[in-house]
Each structure stands twice: as structure tokens, then as C-alpha cells.
């Protein structure tokens, strides 16, 4: 491929932004607790987890367990392959939106495997909670993605960015944008949607993880959140469009704004119980996103 350095820069940038998100989250937690604020905390955590012993449970399914833990980060890196950094993405697929959706669904399998493989009740319940969460958020999420693709009449991310040269999609698809942000939190089991790793299950899927496995899993979670925030920019916020600054800088600024908002929301609200959220997702969010798609389709037909 012509731009070989993109395949290094893309995941590296994803990692740096994820580290920034972790630092911001640590700062917010420290301020709420009235503790000294240390921005370097995620890096120290990184080092501490590298020298920590890995947990072993009796009769664990080690292959599934370890593969599941690593799978979350892999899903994030695969998903970010279609996000444009500046002008072009690492891979300019003609079905970029579908690729993003498929890569993120890998996290479902990863989380279930990580929960089931540990042979622990809390992990098992956490894994199944994520499956329930997936069933709840996935359809509204897909409709939000399709609405953006509908506005550009193409599944290529580059075409979606090009279609926003006059007005950003967030202006005339606000419902889809809000639903996308909700699903970004849900897909990375953060914020009000962290029941799979909830404190009430002593950490849920993460209850039996320590050392390198915990590092890979927790890092993967932030990578997934960052990838979802990064995808919001070409889909709804005009990609690299904007005055004065170069395109790639605009992409970074917009990603940081979306990511900062999602990180801020993380601890602001109590965890939503999945049995109650599923009802809202199917009875409220799906009709809303369908209506939004209808409005967008009518506008596209008329212009």
C-alpha cells in the first residue's frame, strides 16, 4: 500500500489518545475523592501491572480466557482501520461503516470468553450481562450508523466526510448522534453501561484478572472507547473539515472533544441495569432512530 506509515501511526495515535483518556479519568476520580491529582497514574499502573503475578483459577478454560482478554484491544485496532486520520484512513474500504460495526462486535465474543473462561461466577454473570447489553444497544447503534451512510448515500467513510462539506450531519441528524454516543459508551462497557465489570460483581469480567491480563483488558477497554469516539468525527462531525487548521489537526481536536465528553460522563451517572435498559432500547430508541432515518431519507430524496 502506498501509505505504509499510516498502519503504524494509526494504532499508535489510538494508544496515545486512550492513554490520555485514562489520565483524564484518573484526574476526575482524584478530584471527586479529594485526593492528590497525579496525571502520570496510568503509566505507573502500566508498570505495576507488568510486574504483577497473573491469576490462575481452578479448571479455567485458559485459551478462551486469555484470548478474550486480548480480544477487546484487537477489536478496537481493527475498528479504527477505517477512521480517516486527516485525509485518508489506513484502509479506505468501500464498506467502511459495516467494517467498523463488525470489528466492534468482536468485543462481544471477547468479553463473553473472558467472563466464561475464568470459571468464576462473577465473571460468568458479567460476560452474560455484556451479551444482554449488546442485544440492547446494537440495533439503535446500527440504525444510527446507517442514517449517516444514508445521508451520504454511500458506506465509504470518505464519501460520508465529503457529503458534510456544507453542513455537518450532527445538525440535521441529532438523534442519530446522541444514540451513537450512547452506544459508544455501551460498546466499551464504560460509564452508565459498565454492568459487565460492575462493582456489584466485584469487577465482573475483570474480577479474576491480574497482571498482564488485566493490563491488556483494561487497556483494550480504553482503546475501544477511543475508537468509538474517533469514528464519531467522520460520521457526524465533518471529519477533517474546518477553517484555519490543517485537516489532521481538526480530526484530533474533534476526537479529543468527543472523548473528553465521554470520559466526563463515565462517573457522572449510576450504572443502568440491563434488564431495564433493554426495554428502553427496544421500545424508545429503535423507533426514534427509525424516525430519524425516515427524515434523512426524505431529505435525501428531495435534494
Amino acid at each position, binding site marked *: 500500500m502506498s501509505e505504509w506509515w499510516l498502519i503504524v501511526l494509526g494504532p499508535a495515535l489510538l494508544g496515545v489518545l486512550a492513554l490520555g483518556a485514562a489520565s483524564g479519568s484518573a484526574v476526575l476520580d482524584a478530584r*471527586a475523592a*479529594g485526593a492528590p491529582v497525579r496525571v502520570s497514574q496510568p503509566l505507573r499502573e502500566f508498570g505495576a501491572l507488568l510486574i*504483577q*503475578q*497473573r491469576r490462575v483459577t*481452578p479448571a479455567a478454560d485458559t485459551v478462551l480466557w486469555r484470548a478474550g482478554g486480548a480480544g477487546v484491544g484487537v477489536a478496537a485496532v481493527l475498528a479504527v482501520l477505517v477512521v480517516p486520520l486527516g485525509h485518508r484512513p489506513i484502509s479506505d474500504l468501500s464498506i467502511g461503516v459495516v467494517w467498523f460495526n463488525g470489528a466492534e462486535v468482536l468485543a462481544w465474543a471477547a468479553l463473553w470468553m473472558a467472563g466464561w473462561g475464568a470459571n468464576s461466577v462473577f465473571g460468568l454473570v458479567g460476560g452474560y450481562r455484556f451479551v444482554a447489553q449488546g442485544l440492547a444497544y446494537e440495533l439503535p447503534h446500527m440504525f444510527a450508523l446507517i442514517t449517516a451512510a444514508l445521508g451520504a448515500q454511500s458506506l465509504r467513510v470518505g464519501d460520508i466526510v465529503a457529503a458534510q462539506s456544507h453542513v455537518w450531519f450532527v445538525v440535521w441528524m441529532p438523534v442519530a448522534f446522541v444514540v451513537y454516543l450512547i452506544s459508544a459508551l455501551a460498546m466499551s462497557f464504560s460509564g452508565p453501561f459498565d454492568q459487565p465489570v460492575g*462493582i*456489584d460483581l466485584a469487577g465482573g469480567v475483570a474480577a479474576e484478572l491480574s497482571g498482564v491480563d488485566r493490563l491488556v483488558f483494561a487497556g483494550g477497554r480504553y482503546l475501544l472507547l477511543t475508537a468509538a469516539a474517533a469514528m464519531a468525527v467522520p460520521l457526524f462531525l465533518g471529519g477533517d473539515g474546518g477553517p484555519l487548521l490543517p485537516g489532521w489537526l481538526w480530526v484530533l481536536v474533534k476526537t479529543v472533544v468527543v472523548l473528553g465528553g465521554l470520559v466526563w460522563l463515565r462517573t457522572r451517572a449510576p450504572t443502568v441495569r440491563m434488564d431495564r435498559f433493554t426495554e428502553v432500547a427496544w421500545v424508545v430508541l429503535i423507533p426514534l432512530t427509525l424516525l430519524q432515518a425516515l427524515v434523512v431519507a426524505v431529505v435525501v430524496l428531495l435534494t
Partner: protein
Amino acid sequence: MDLTAALLRGTRPSVFVLTGPGGTGCRLAVEQLIRVRGYRQAVAPAQANVLLRCGVLDAEVAERVWAQLPLPAAREKVTVAAEAERALDRAVAELADPVRQRAEVRAVPALPERDMAERAPDRDGVSMDQLHVPLGPALSDWPTGLRLHLVLQGDVVQAATCQVVGAAAGPFWTVHNVPAAALDSLQRMLGVAGWSAAASTARRLRDEVLTHHTTAATQLDRWVRRVRRSRLLRWSTDGLGVLTEADGTRADATARWLRWLDQLTGAPAPPRAEAARAHLDALPGLVVGQELAAVRLIVASLDPDIEAMISAEAPHE
């Protein structure tokens, strides 16, 4: 250059506080130190690298929890609240000492041969695996001294029995520190409900009330208003664990935590020992048929004061 020693020095202590009856004073002192120093309070033993024991607990429980802490790790016992700071310092120093950590050797435990899970019909008559899961006493954000034996199918409770573990010397919460007790119960419930920011603020307010017997009224008011107005929290706790109280009213989990918020501004609290006994007797009936998240929320909203109950029911010589 010893990279492991350098990383060990930079390790943030992640403290798992194992509390038994009689250890509430020590636990409060330890939690305040953890918060002020910026350490993490571990949610599970696998996440922790320091184990602090407060109060009276089975030695077997403490050993099993210690075996689950991944190395490098350190442990200490806190007997008196005034000793909490020294014990924590000793534990953190032991954690950061590469020589002692390298010398630590854990015997790999001989794992017993386990059978597959037994089966039993569930609520629809379908034969499903049954798991026997005890919740507590070494669970974070859990009432001290309670062990709840559950028979789970999936994450739905089929049967439940309560057991009280440990022995108490005397109750900690009296009529003079009602607001602090309410804040303590609230921070546990907000933790279980997943609202970490509000739980952190509640801990900060609780520590202020305990040390200064008063707190910045504006801060407390703002926090109370935010929690009271939260529709998401009510959505989670509405309709859970409906119980007929001593004065005849029927209260669900939401009503109970609203009552704690009222106690912050001067409302009186019901006698804790009798309330704890009533709640423990009703608990098995409340949790059967509920899923695990609801069980945790029900127990957190009841928050029985087991120390007071044990002290009140202890045979008087």
C-alpha cells in the same frame, strides 16, 4: 539498573480492606487514609496488592483472601483505629521492598477435585445448572459480618440463607453519629449502584462529619440535592425489596435511601439492632427470584448493622 525494583517503587498501593464485626472504627480510619493519600480501594482481591484486616474474622477467611492477592503483596492487621496509619505505612513499605517481595514464595494450593455443577429445575421447569455461591463476608461494599448463601441458576436466585460471621465487642454507630452512619450506608449503596463520583463525595463528606462533627453545609446540600434528584438511580432501585417497616409503612429500596438522605438533615434513625434483626429475617424472602444486581441493591439498601445486632443479642453474663 533494576527495572522491577523501579516499577515496584512506583506501584500505587491498591488496598483490599477485609472487615469483620468490631472493625468499623478501624475501617473508617483506613478508608480515610486511602482516600487522602490517593491509593486505590480494591474491589476484588485479584485487583489488590495490600490486604488490611480490621475487626474479628475467621482466620480461614483471611488466609483464603490473602492467597488470592497476586504478588507483589503485603498484609497487615489493624486492631485499633489509632494504629491505622502506622499499619498502612508498614504495609506500603513492605510492598515497595524488592528484597522481601522476591523472597515471598507462595505454595501452589492443592486444588481439590471438583464435580460438575448439579442440576435442578428452574422457575420454568427446565433443568439448569445450580451454583452454590456465598456472598460475603470478604466482599467490597457489603455489610460487615454477613454471609448470604445463594443457590443460583444463571444469575437468578433460587434459594437463600443468611449467616452471621464473627463476634462483636460493641456497636459503633450510636444516636450521636446518625449523619455519619447514614453517609456510610449511602456511600456503600452508591458504590453498588455504580455511581462512583457520588460515592467518593459521600466518603469525603462522611470523613468530614466524623472528624469535625460538621461539614460545609453548601457542599452537603449540593450533593444531597444531586442524589435526591437522580432519576437514573431511582430507575435502578424502584420496586426492589419491598418491606413492611416497624411503623407499618411499606418501603422499597428507593424509600430507604431517601430516608438516609433525610437523616443527614436531622431526622432520627430507628434503633439499629432491632432493624438489623428484622431485615436479616426478611432478607431470604426478599432476594429469592431476583437477579444478582437486584440482590446487591436490596442488601445495600437494607445495610443491616450486624455489629449492633450481635452486641444486643449477646448473652449477658
